[in-house]
């Protein structure tokens, strides 16, 4: 239901003049077939957490949706085959990483059948009565992770410890970053599925809800009127008064989890805490739709909406892309590169990751491929402390002071200035008139602090060990000395009894002498008797 809610103004952030979203929203989303792809490269590690354990081997033939690797450890999700086909190899391939790192991938050659076989999960149709545990288990089983970019396993977020009480479920449809439109298109086209996913989540959380039920706020930036409208219609059809569509002001980075929660509820997530600490849980709209697919259709997460945009592609648009599809194939589907293509970014223009090559598979985290033109590099000037960065910071940090201390590698001061609250949204670097790459300094400082902490822990451990070793040596020495002392003492106390012994011997000898003497006195008689 759409009603006017009070929103909490958040200071900081950017009001950009152009979000470059129109280019890629002109045509409906095109579904790309996994079956016709020459090969699919499916990395095992597509989520934050532990790497899943591979359960297939090269040469195996798999159905669509079949589990390729199962979750290992708590923070882990399985990975599934995006289509049916033969596993050609399990080997290291380049993954979406700025340094072009390799990781273990399953190389799947589609057979063109797109055959589910018996691998579709059993749909849970009466999800309104299903137990929370069964819903969470299914979400985990389907390999669902946060599709907003953090790719954290969704089941863990849904599986809340018993005593925690929630008031609000926030669904993030803000999509604040320039160029990205995949959630916009998803809300326009799949609003009903998102709302159903939302109802499933509300069911999964019902044990933590207050007596009058959870409120579900779906925050959408007001530069997406069509998405807002589609979602409103779907919410009305669902006839559930808990769900409210809330247009929020367009202001980067409203889509940050903590920022959106503040705007919608007026409450701040504690600095080192989680949203559940203030009774709020936040999921992305695309995650809600993936949950719908897993519960109602029995489909694991094997495809996602991806925006392909920028001046470097011929026909910017959105695609429904099977996981594992080569990025170059995806760009080709959008008409290929233009002559301006100079940089390939996975994500948006504020927080995306620039990739060295397009020979990389699309993964669960791939929300957007932005191919940009050449940008003239500006030489940074010194910081003039103008404070625009502080005005733009949505977390209310002092980027100018952080920069100053990070540059001087004064890590203690950097931590005092709350560097770990920095969300690396890039607002500071965007407004900096001196064109200083501020976020780079913060990333570097954070890494530096981690390294130092680790070194300190290692040193502490080494010192502890050394101290223990020293103590052990000393104890051994002490014990030895004590033992020796005891022994000595013992041997001394033993000399007294030996004296007694000698005395006894002496006494015995004396007695023997006396006896002998007595015998000597008496013997003549006996000797005398003998001859007789």
């Amino acid at each position: 239901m759409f009603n006017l809610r009070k929103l909490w103004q958040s200071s900081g952030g950017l009001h950009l003049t152009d979000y470059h979203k129109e280019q890629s929203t002109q045509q409906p989303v095109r579904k790309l077939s996994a079956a016709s792809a020459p090969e699919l490269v499916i990395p095992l590690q597509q989520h934050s957490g532990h790497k899943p354990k591979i359960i297939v081997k090269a040469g195996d033939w798999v159905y669509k949706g079949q589990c390729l690797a199962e979750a290992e450890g708590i923070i882990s999700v399985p990975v599934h085959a995006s289509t049916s086909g033969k596993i050609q190899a399990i080997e290291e391939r380049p993954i979406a990483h700025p340094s072009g790192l390799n990781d273990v991938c399953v190389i799947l050659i589609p057979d063109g059948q797109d055959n589910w076989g018996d691998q579709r999960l059993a749909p849970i149709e009466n999800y309104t009565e299903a137990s929370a545990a069964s819903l969470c288990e299914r979400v985990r089983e389907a390999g669902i992770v946060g599709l907003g970019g953090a790719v954290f396993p969704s089941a863990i977020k849904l599986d809340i410890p018993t005593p925690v009480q929630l008031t609000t479920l926030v669904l993030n449809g803000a999509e604040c970053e320039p160029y990205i439109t995949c959630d916009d298109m998803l809300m326009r086209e799949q609003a009903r599925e998102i709302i159903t996913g939302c109802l499933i989540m509300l069911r999964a959380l019902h044990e933590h809800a207050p007596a009058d039920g959870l409120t579900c706020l779906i925050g959408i930036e007001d530069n997406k009127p069509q998405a807002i409208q589609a979602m409103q219609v779907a919410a009305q059809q669902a006839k559930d008064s808990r769900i409210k569509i809330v247009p929020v002001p367009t202001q980067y980075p409203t889509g940050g989890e903590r920022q959106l929660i503040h705007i919608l509820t007026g409450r701040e997530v504690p600095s080192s805490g989680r949203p559940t600490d203030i009774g709020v849980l936040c999921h992305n709209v695309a995650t809600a739709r993936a949950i719908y697919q897993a519960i109602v259709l029995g489909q694991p997460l094997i495809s996602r909406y991806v925006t392909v945009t920028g001046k470097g592609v011929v026909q910017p648009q959105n695609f429904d892309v099977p996981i594992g599809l080569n990025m170059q194939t995806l760009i080709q589907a959008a008409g290929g590169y233009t002559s301006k293509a100079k940089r390939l970014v996975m994500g948006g223009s504020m927080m995306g990751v620039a990739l060295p090559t397009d020979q990389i598979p699309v993964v669960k985290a791939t929300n957007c491929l932005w191919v940009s033109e050449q940008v003239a590099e500006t030489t940074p000037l010194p910081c003039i402390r103008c404070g625009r960065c502080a005005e733009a910071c949505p977390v209310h940090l002092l980027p100018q002071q952080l920069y100053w201390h990070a540059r001087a590698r004064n890590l203690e001061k950097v931590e005092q200035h709350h560097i770990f609250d920095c969300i690396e949204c890039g607002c500071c670097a965007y407004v900096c008139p001196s064109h200083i790459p501020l976020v780079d300094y913060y990333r570097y400082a954070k890494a530096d602090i981690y390294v130092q902490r680790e070194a300190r822990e290692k040193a502490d451990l080494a010192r502890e060990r050394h101290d223990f070793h020293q103590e052990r040596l000393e104890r051994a020495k002490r014990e030895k000395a004590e033992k020796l002392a005891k022994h000595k003492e013992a041997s001394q106390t033993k000399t007294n009894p030996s004296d007694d012994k000698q005395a006894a011997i002496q006494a015995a000898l004396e007695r023997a002498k006396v006896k002998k003497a007595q015998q000597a006195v008496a013997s003549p008689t006996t000797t005398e008797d003998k001859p007789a």
Partner: protein
Amino acid sequence: MMFGTNTSPYMHAPQGVGQVMAQVIYALVPGTLVLLWFFGWGVITNLLLGLGFALLLEALMLKLRQRPILPFLTDYSAVVTGWLLAVALPPYSPWWLLLIALIFAMVIGKHLYGGLGYNPFNPAMVGYAAILVSFPVEMTSWPAPELTSIANINLSEALQQVLLGGASTWDGLTQATTLDTIKTHLRLGETVEQISQGQAFGWIAGQAWEWVSLAWLAGGLWLIYRKIISWHIPFALMAALAGMALIFWLINPHTYSSPLFHLVGGATILGAFFIATDPVSASTTPLGKILYAGGIGCFTYIIRVWGSYPDAIAFAVLIMNMAVPLLDAYTQPRVYGTKGRFGL
């Protein structure tokens, strides 16, 4: 296909340091034009000499420090310093006075500390304070507004005064500033009302000064509107100065000038909007800015009323520049999701 990699963000606002400084310069134009109206050629000679020396010294220091010259000259920070000193010094100042001021500003105040962004003290005020203590006579005798306008003094007379100096008739054309007049006459036992009857006083604080201050105010408000400066520093400075003045004026209006006099007189408005707002040497947190500028306002009043110099913006700014690292360290804003200073 291979691509270049760098790190996010990949977008940038169009503005650079040069554009920021350029807007400060635009905002200085109205005040400068009013000065020109009242004081004629002397304002132009001041400006030309100020800008010339500033750019020359900046280029020289960049060369000596082996820094790229063009990128730093085009950040226009040297132009701002030169311009500020040119309008702060009395019109028709001799060339050597401007040169000495700018050597102190550019060489000692700025580049010996590491150039743009690294100077703890406001360079223009370092230059101003140095010549104010060294050449008090030249610095406190301003030309009389009516007598030195373009109609009364022609270019060659102006050049003669500036380049060769000391024409004997010149003394007749100068007068003490209103702040100075008040100070000396109060010492003679006169009351503020009596002194204000003098011909140098306009409605509030001296004929030309009212108009000049209004023009600085217009430029300053435009800078706030353009978000080049924030409101914190100018308004905290004026509030503190006016507050101090109000207290003492209420106690004894015969010996203490009105708050309005202090706001309009001297270099208050220029200082509040253009000098104290120099971002490099000012505090950088919102609360820090208020404390910093409040301190400047208080010190300005104290030095004006009880010190031996008639105007005090320069000294007050330099004093508070010293407090900036401390202010910045203790006035961090409350970060999202954390408890504030008082556990709130």
